[in-house]
């Protein structure tokens, strides 16, 4: 398929912008471009067809089943979009006077109130743009807390080996040293190893609960106690909150700071590069360090306040505001009971699909799971030569997005499924039957799986070459 630049014809144009209704202002000479912008020249028909063609080459949650583990690809209600498109939300300016934006500020305050109730936190910032940005912000808060107490020897962050890859990356970005804590054979944190690792140099622990194996760590209270007793703080990676939303609260598990992926758990579009929202919630002891422009209610109206010892801004103004609007719309639609139902259905769906698949392949962990589960194709690969990658690629031929592959790293040939609560029993039955057929074919006709997908617009991209010699921009001279 040709790029817009390749479809460009000199002199072709279309009028999409309305007439300018304010006087033109001349740019100062030193800021003006010397040459015209190199933009593609196309008619509206060309543009419309281009993007429609692109949209046919992707698989979104509106196209079909999307069990991408750890990503919570739930359906995003259309009402979210309708509300977020209201002119009162889209026509505002970040610098307009507070008294003219009270409704928008109320959205932030109300979303904060509900999310604090869901997580057991005291206050929340919506500045971070996505999950890893939230981790970074949460760790800056932990750092500021220890510093404010003159406790400068706490330089290490404990991260279990089943953690999301972003955890050690965020800790390193914040200037901490990462200490890896192994899992015990049951997939939970190894308590002895944790006790050994925790000490006077521990700044905190980062934990995802349920973890990336889809297991709720049964020792969670003991884990957070060990870290607290060592003088560290507990950070909750909210990536998997969908499993416990409305059922259990990180605050009650002993966590001091939590990030939420509003774009995952609270149903705002994701998977296309954003925008997201990595809201960060904190308990009392971290409130004095919150990022700038925290909404508070004073004398019956809303105002932005900077905390006394704020870590500063982590993003311009108020974060991705319209994502918060969507999340609030979702929470208001569901209500407290609805949120709990959503989490319970997510867990039920995952267990149902796991049960249906278990006769056909190996689960990484036996028994019940939370909202997601991991299969291992290790035996299949040894017996047939068909890898997790081949199985995943084959699923594409049936109009199904593959699960997450080769993650978590502690499971060889991993396939990680997260069906979410918005899939029906019929879809899960169909998916299980289809996957069972694929696994059966691995024994009878492995070649067909190596060659898959065959029915998609794009076959199997050369991922190695793409990573080794990436083409990151269009070259006009080529």
């Amino acid at each position, binding site marked *: 398929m040709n790029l817009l630049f390749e479809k460009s014809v000199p002199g072709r144009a279309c009028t999409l912008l309305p007439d300018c209704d304010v006087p033109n202002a001349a740019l100062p000479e030193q800021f003006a471009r010397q040459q015209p912008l190199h933009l593609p020249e196309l008619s509206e028909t060309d543009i419309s067809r281009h993007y429609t063609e692109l949209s046919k080459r992707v698989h979104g949650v509106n196209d079909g089943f999307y069990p991408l583990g750890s990503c919570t690809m739930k359906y995003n209600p259309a009402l979210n979009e309708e509300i977020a498109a209201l002119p009162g939300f889209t026509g505002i300016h970040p610098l307009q006077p507070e008294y003219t934006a009270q409704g928008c500020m109320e959205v932030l305050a109300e979303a904060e109130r509900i999310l604090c109730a869901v997580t057991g936190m005291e206050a929340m910032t919506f500045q971070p743009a996505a999950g890893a940005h939230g981790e970074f912000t949460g760790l800056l808060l932990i750092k500021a807390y220890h510093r404010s107490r003159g406790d400068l020897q706490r330089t290490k962050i404990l991260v279990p080996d089943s953690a999301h890859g972003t955890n050690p990356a965020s800790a390193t970005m914040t200037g901490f040293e990462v200490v890896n804590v192994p899992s015990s054979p049951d997939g939970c944190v190894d308590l002895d190893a944790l006790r050994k690792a925790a000490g006077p140099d521990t700044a905190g622990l980062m934990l995802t609960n349920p973890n990336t194996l889809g297991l709720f760590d049964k020792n969670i209270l003991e884990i957070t106690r060990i870290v607290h007793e060592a003088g560290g703080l507990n950070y909750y990676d909210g990536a998997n909150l969908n499993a416990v939303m409305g059922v259990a609260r990180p605050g009650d598990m002993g966590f001091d700071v939590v990030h939420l992926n509003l774009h995952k758990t609270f149903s705002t579009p994701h998977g296309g590069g954003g925008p997201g929202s990595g809201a960060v919630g904190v308990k009392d002891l971290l409130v004095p360090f919150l990022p700038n422009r925290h909404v508070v209610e004073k004398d019956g109206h809303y105002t932005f306040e900077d905390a006394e010892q704020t870590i500063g801004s982590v993003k311009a103004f108020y974060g991705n505001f319209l994502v918060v609007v969507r999340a609030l719309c979702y929470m208001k639609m569901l209500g407290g009971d609805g949120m709990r139902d959503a989490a319970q259905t997510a867990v039920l769906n995952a267990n149902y699909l796991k049960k249906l698949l278990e006769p056909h392949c190996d689960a990484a962990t036996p028994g019940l799971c939370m909202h997601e589960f991991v299969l291992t194709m*290790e035996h299949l690969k040894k017996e047939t030569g068909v890898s997790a990658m081949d199985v995943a690629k084959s699923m594409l031929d049936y109009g199904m997005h593959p699960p997450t592959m*080769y993650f978590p790293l502690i499971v*060889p040939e991993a396939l990680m499924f997260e069906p979410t609560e918005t899939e029906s029993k019929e879809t899960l039955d169909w998916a299980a039957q289809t996957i069972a057929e694929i696994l059966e074919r691995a024994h009878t006709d492995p070649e067909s799986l190596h060659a898959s997908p065959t029915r998609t617009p794009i076959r199997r991209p050369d*991922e*190695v070459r793409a*990573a*080794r010699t990436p083409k990151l921009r269009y070259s006009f001279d080529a």
Partner: protein
Amino acid sequence: MKIPNELLYTRSHEWIQKLDETSARVGVTDYAQNQLGDLVFVNLPEVGDPVTPGESFADVESVKAVSDLYSPVGGTVSAINEELLDAPQRINEAPYDAWFIEVGEITEYGDLMDAAAYEAFCAEEEAKH
């Protein structure tokens, strides 16, 4: 799977070739490159950096994941194989030619295995799964 007799091995799947009394070359084994899959990126230390037995001295990135490499010895990096930076596929093609670093002024050795012991160790690892 190749396990040359003249090399020594770690439990984290690095190989070490002694060059003389105080210097050695270090790379990753055939078993390791096979587990990692096609490598697309390599991060090397700088000449003069200290290395410690059991601690990370480099990392490799495959299409699956980023993995640390752990030093079999303590000493100072005396040379790095810059060719790997542009051609990480060399590690997949010829893991025992594609050395990562040379270490000089070696002061200590970690736990090392000979080829027979390493072969048994790999078999054990395989059996675990």
